[in-house]
């Protein structure tokens, strides 16, 4: 396991290196001059030239690339428009994304897995039809529309939740305050909706598959109670594809939820990415893309390692 983990980490370094080249090339190929955007309409050519010089945009492309990579590694890479280091900009926005992602994941798992199990156990019952129908709607409805509807119903009509924004924070976290917690509900539920739907369907399908296996029949034949059969024999084996899916979702959650964050005015890194692209802040886009790529790779690695834990037949050494 240790050797496998080290090998995977080494692979990650290679992939990240490739990613830096890919992202940098794409950034430089993008039309638009950051200096002009920063200088604004009506700026003199001298001002634009001075900003280009200050940002190092006149330097040879390989030199710019090297400065981006080393700057990101030693924490000195400065954002072009935020007047602080790229890491400082990302870290400032990260708690909002993390807490939104974690809460969305908790909601999704708490709802989807029991729903999927019940749906499988009581298949073709009204409960099963209800779960599969709601799951279908959850997958089909766009997140921004669902968020708007939640805001309209709970924020405007019932007035039980704040419409948007992050609310009060304590030590940078909003879930530590009541106001912040109330602000977290709508974005977290909206973000969780797609995950809920996917996980519920996957859990149901996986449970149905496992419930047909011989060892489940054997367990029943031994006279075990149904909840023991389901909980101890079926559920654990059915979780493998669900864990894979959740692992991928975790990576995506930490990479920011652009639509949810924009719609609900949630100041996370998904919205930061949109703002940075609009401002042509190449340094922040570079840093964010690498950060998001790293999140995905780490979550995939964790999922692979979890396989061995969940299914003892899987070994990596």
């Amino acid at each position: 396991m240790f050797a496998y983990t080290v090998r995977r980490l080494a692979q990650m370094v290679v992939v990240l290196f490739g990613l830096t080249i890919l992202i940098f090339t794409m950034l430089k190929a993008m039309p638009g001059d950051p200096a002009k955007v920063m200088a604004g309409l009506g700026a003199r050519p001298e001002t634009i030239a001075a900003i280009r010089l200050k940002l190092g945009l006149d330097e040879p492309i390989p030199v710019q690339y090297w400065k981006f990579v080393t700057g990101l590694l030693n924490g000195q890479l400065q954002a072009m428009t935020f007047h602080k280091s790229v890491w400082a900009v990302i870290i400032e926005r990260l708690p909002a994304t993390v807490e939104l992602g974690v809460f969305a994941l908790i909601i999704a798992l708490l709802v989807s897995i029991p729903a999927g199990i019940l749906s499988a156990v009581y298949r073709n019952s009204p409960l099963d039809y209800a779960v599969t129908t709601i799951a279908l709607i959850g997958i089909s409805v766009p997140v921004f529309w669902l968020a708007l509807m939640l805001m309209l119903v709970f924020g405007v009509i019932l007035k039980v939740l704040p419409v948007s924004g992050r609310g009060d924070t304590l030590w940078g976290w909003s879930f530590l305050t009541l106001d912040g917690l109330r602000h977290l509900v709508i974005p977290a539920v909206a973000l969780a909706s797609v995950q809920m739907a996917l996980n519920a369907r996957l859990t149901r399908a996986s449970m149905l598959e496992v419930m047909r296996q011989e060892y489940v029949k054997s367990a029943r034949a031994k006279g075990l109670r149904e909840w023991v059969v389901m909980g101890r024999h079926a559920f654990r084996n059915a979780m493998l594809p669900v864990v894979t899916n959740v692992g991928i979702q975790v990576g995506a959650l930490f990479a920011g939820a652009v639509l949810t964050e924009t719609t609900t005015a949630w100041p996370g890194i998904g919205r930061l990415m949109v703002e940075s692209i609009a401002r042509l802040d190449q340094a922040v886009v570079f840093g964010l893309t690498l950060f998001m790529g790293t999140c995905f790779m780490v979550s995939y690695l964790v999922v692979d390692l979890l396989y061995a834990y969940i299914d003892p037949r899987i070994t990596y050494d």
Partner: protein
Amino acid sequence: MLRITKVCIVLLGVVLAGWGAFGETSKPSTPGAKVGGTLTIGVSQDFKDMDPRIANSVYDSYVIASVFDRLVELDPYTLEPRPFVAKSWEVLSEDRVRFYLNEGIKFHNGDELTAEDVAFTFNWMANPANNSPNFTELVWLEQAVVVNKYTVDIVTKADYAPWAPGFATESQAIVPMKYVLEVGDAAFNQFPIGSGPYKFVEWRQGDRIILERNENYWLVYPNLDRVVYRVIPELSVMMLELEAGGIDIADNMPAQDVERFRANPKVEVLQVPSLSYFYVFFNMSRPPSSDIRYRKAVYMSVDMDAAVFSIFQNLTGVRAYGCIPPRLWASDVKYLKNNIALQYDPEEAARLIAELKAEGVIPPGYKTTIYCPLDPRRTQLATIIATGLREVGLDADVQPLAWGPYLDLVYRSEADPLAESLDQGILGWSGGPDPHDFIYYMFHSDNAVVGSADNLSFYMNPLVDWLLLKAATTLDQHLREWLYTEAQRIIYGDYVHIPGYHYIETRGVRTSVQGYNIDPLGNQYLCTPFVNVWIDPTR
């Protein structure tokens, strides 16, 4: 470059001295006002800079307007400058104006605002080495010189009639020299200290900025405990927030929501014609758009009245006929509308297109592109124009571009391959309270500079150049009006632009907010010599 006669300078002195004498600052009272409460303002874009010397976004200016004071303030009704930090002023010579400051004004850290701070602010911005995006606003400034603790001289490179209103804009807000030098520009930009009615408390990036009352404000006791500026990028969400009471003021309201909120007893829809101008410009540097017949054909192929109505439903925008907004003097709307503007005439447009094709000005199989920024209104206008052109026999398509690439294109950056296909594009302009802020930048040949053009058409007309410079360096209001009127008639008679629309600044305000008016320049002033916003919790 700009010279003015001594007579004009004397006139300037008389006018300014008159303002000074007329408008001695005094603490205005707000009868019946209640003190306290938090005002929450929704803004549609995130904040960038809080240092007024470099901030050039309208959203930043909302906050800056409450944290800092300005040398003079624009009267919101007459758009004329009135005393603010400067209690009076006098012209000493052709190139020197002396400002006398109010004594005892304190910055939020307790330091006194003195002539040194004023001179430091202006000299820093006017120094090209500092690369301030607001440099062009002070391009006429030679130097600001400290005379004594409460007196500062502004020395100009050349005499310049419309300069005084420029002082009033938020980018010329006075910063504390000692504090800025102590903490550095970057730290000051993140946590600014001014002398304004509200103190900076916290900037939660991407989320909100919080201000609180400056208890020791020199001008008046600010009515609000706190002011919160919340970033809400989605307009539909901002409207929900306004309806639910999550915000007290929405800085923007789409046309489709205006009627709904007019029927809402808890919300008031405030509107004021903005000092903005949206237009179609033609590229005068290459055929076919360098040919006036082409420009007229495009103009006549569009039913602009119908286009503007379909975009704004007569609610948040009005048809434009020239670049100077109707609210300003010298706009000359009636003449331009009746004598210059072309009516929708697809037959005549088709005839001109056919003529240009027959002469080879428009090559066989030629397809023109209407370029525009990624903005729904301008994209809609571009689509209407392209549809009209196809109907009169010219193949056309629409190409919306992100802001960065679009600037590259319209500035004619040499590296931009699209510049080779630029016949026309759509852009907007916002200016100050003087016609110069509009017409000079968009049509004087000085501003037809590759890489940073404001004269996007690259229109070069020596007569227009002369008229605009003469107007800029003349103080006689009637003469200036005549000069601008003449210039505008020539420009629009050359069909350099198709005037599109003037935006009507539209804001939704909860009825509990009292004493709030929309600033004609689009800013959010909460406590000035003219307003002191308060909240009535009973409404």
